[in-house]
């Protein structure tokens, strides 16, 4: 499966240039062009201090999944084809893909300090190498670089759209601090947090490229809804993998959420079958043995299947939305991508 994901990233199966050489040159094709993205990102971060630069570029090594930029690039091309039958991407749309990844990375750097995490994507976290003080500044620096790049696009609507993401990320982090006693509220709280922490970035950057590519507000809403649904599905599967995957595959330790005291989808579903988990959720798995016991409960319950099923429903919704656009290789790739989100194992 990882292989399929990897191949897909390279664009073997769907890349328009290989299937039917279109008007644009192969170099123009979407995600493969992203191989240069990490270089471009490095260029965005015009920083004099070398160590600070090294820290800020640490995660832009081209080894991440680059899930967000891929979606954004595909969405840009799908919207452009829909609007005027030209798949060429504007420079401003490409910038949005980079900015999305930068905002994501800035939030990762800060989250890792907040959670005191020690590994990510198979390497040490910035805070473990350079210390918390510097890591926080590196996060702020990436955010400022992203804001500068955003301002240079010169479109106030786009600025407002992506600013919403920054606000959602922070509010999501606050939601994660609190927990709800009532079971129904707890689930709504979890979904809201998932939207703010993960899906908002994807939804709003999809919307931003659609605004740049096409004046029709109906298309903007389609782009937003696709991004939102795929984003939530992506995070639900992430939460499942925290239980089912081993740490080698993920590049970060598993059961991480439980250790942080967080009750994610699989736990909340499992709790319906094993009400004795309620107490553990309320004390945020803080007693010795809580994490292991909760993990056992989840694996015995159908929490994993139910969460996966929920993710499927979000994906179907995403496909339903994106299918409203005119057919194009990129639109089909986006449909395929929503399936890959469900079946990925890393």
């Amino acid at each position: 499966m990882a292989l399929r994901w990897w191949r897909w990233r390279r664009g073997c199966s769907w890349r328009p240039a290989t299937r039917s050489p279109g008007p644009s040159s192969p170099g123009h094709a979407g995600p493969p062009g992203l191989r240069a993205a990490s270089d471009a990102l490095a260029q965005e971060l015009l920083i004099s201090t070398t160590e600070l630069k090294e820290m800020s570029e640490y995660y832009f090594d081209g080894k991440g999944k680059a899930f967000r930029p891929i979606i954004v690039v595909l969405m840009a091309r799908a919207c452009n084809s829909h609007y005027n039958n030209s798949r060429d991407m504007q420079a401003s749309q490409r910038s949005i893909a980079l900015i999305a990844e930068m905002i994501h990375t800035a939030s990762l750097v800060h989250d890792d300090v907040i959670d005191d995490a020690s590994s990510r994507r198979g390497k040490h976290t910035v805070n473990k190498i350079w210390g918390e003080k510097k890591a926080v500044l590196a996060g702020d620096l990436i955010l400022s670089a992203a804001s500068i790049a955003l301002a240079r696009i010169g479109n106030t609507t786009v600025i407002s759209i992506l600013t919403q993401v920054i606000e959602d990320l922070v509010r999501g982090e606050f939601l994660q601090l609190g927990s709800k006693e009532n079971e129904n509220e707890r689930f709504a709280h979890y979904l809201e947090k998932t939207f703010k922490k993960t899906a908002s970035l994807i939804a709003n950057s999809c919307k931003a490229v659609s605004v740049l590519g096409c004046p029709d507000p109906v298309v903007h809403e389609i782009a937003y809804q696709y991004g939102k649904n795929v984003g939530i599905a992506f995070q639900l599967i992430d939460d499942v993998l925290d239980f089912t995957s081993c740490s080698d595959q993920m590049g970060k330790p598993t059961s991480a959420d439980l250790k942080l005291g967080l009750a994610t989808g699989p736990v909340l579903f499992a709790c319906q079958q094993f009400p004795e988990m309620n107490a553990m959720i309320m004390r945020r798995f803080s007693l010795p043995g809580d994490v292991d016991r909760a993990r056992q409960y989840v694996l015995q319950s159908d929490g994993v299947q139910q969460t996966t099923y929920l993710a499927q429903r979000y994906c179907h919704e995403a496909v339903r939305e994106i299918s409203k656009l005119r057919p194009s290789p990129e639109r089909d790739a986006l449909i395929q991508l929503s399936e890959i989100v469900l079946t990925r194992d890393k």
Partner: protein
Amino acid sequence: MNLQRLLLRFPGYLGALGPPRRLWRFPSLDTISPVGPWRGQSSRSPAHWNQVVSEAEKIVGYPTSFMSLRCLLSDELSNIAMQVRKLVGTQHPLLTTARGLVHDSRHNLQLRGLVVLLISKAAGPSGVNTSQNYDTVSGIYSCQRSLAEITELIHTALLVHRGIVNLNELQSSDGPLKDMQFGNKIAILSGDFLLANACNGLALLQNTKVVELLASALMDLVQGVYHENSTSATGNYITDDIGISTWKEQTFLSHGALLAKSCQAAMELAKHDAEVQDMAFQYGKHMAMSHKINSDLQPFIKEKTSDCVTFHLNSAPVVLHQEFLGRDLWIKQIEEAQEKGRLNYAK
């Protein structure tokens, strides 16, 4: 009320009369300290300063910004306040920062916003009046008031992020690791919250040039703070061999850029031309630099505390002194001081 005179008095109160460039002409400490006006300025009482601030506040209509009020009304901030309470009794620097925000706000915190408002009013509306829908209160556009608030938000956010501690450098005197982790968590979250609010406010201004200016000010500030941290962390080196020009560059990043670029952005919002924008930039820059130099000078001109003054070895007077003496002589002086046991690397 004479606004121009007040603007001129601001740097005066901060300890620098006239263009700050004059300062660089004095090659060493010994020549700086006896110069009358410097001593005179700093001996003015805080009461005078408060008077100037309240005069300024009258001019701009109402107290600088509603940042504090708005923060009180937000769910997130009341959440933070609850969390910060849990930190009471620990050694985490966030507590000191929080205390400073409450105590010091009239003197320092809102100063930047106030300067932005004053310069906005001083410049007035531009001839280019494309901005009929801008409402003004006391001669200041509402967008300029938001800008003043954003300036304060960015400054405060970095103040909070400055106070993160490195967990692997903790001493046993710092108390339990868990407290420090928790303190870091809250400090990051609250700083991020302030930054997100600043971004939001910027987006509402609907002016991409202003967004770019303030985003680059944030970048400068982060780099400046980073420099400051790395120089103060390496306490075992005597000092970095930096000349006054490097000092000026670094201090511009850490102290000048935000005010300079905010003043410029205030002019951009009123559609003033490039020349006026540049003047505002220069005013903000020099104002902030004088402020920093004045605070660097304090340890050297307080007469009563002659024995236990502490000062940063990278503060302006020290850097100038070192440049005047030459590197070798300076190192020798430091060594002598070390032998006498009077040198204490406490910041």
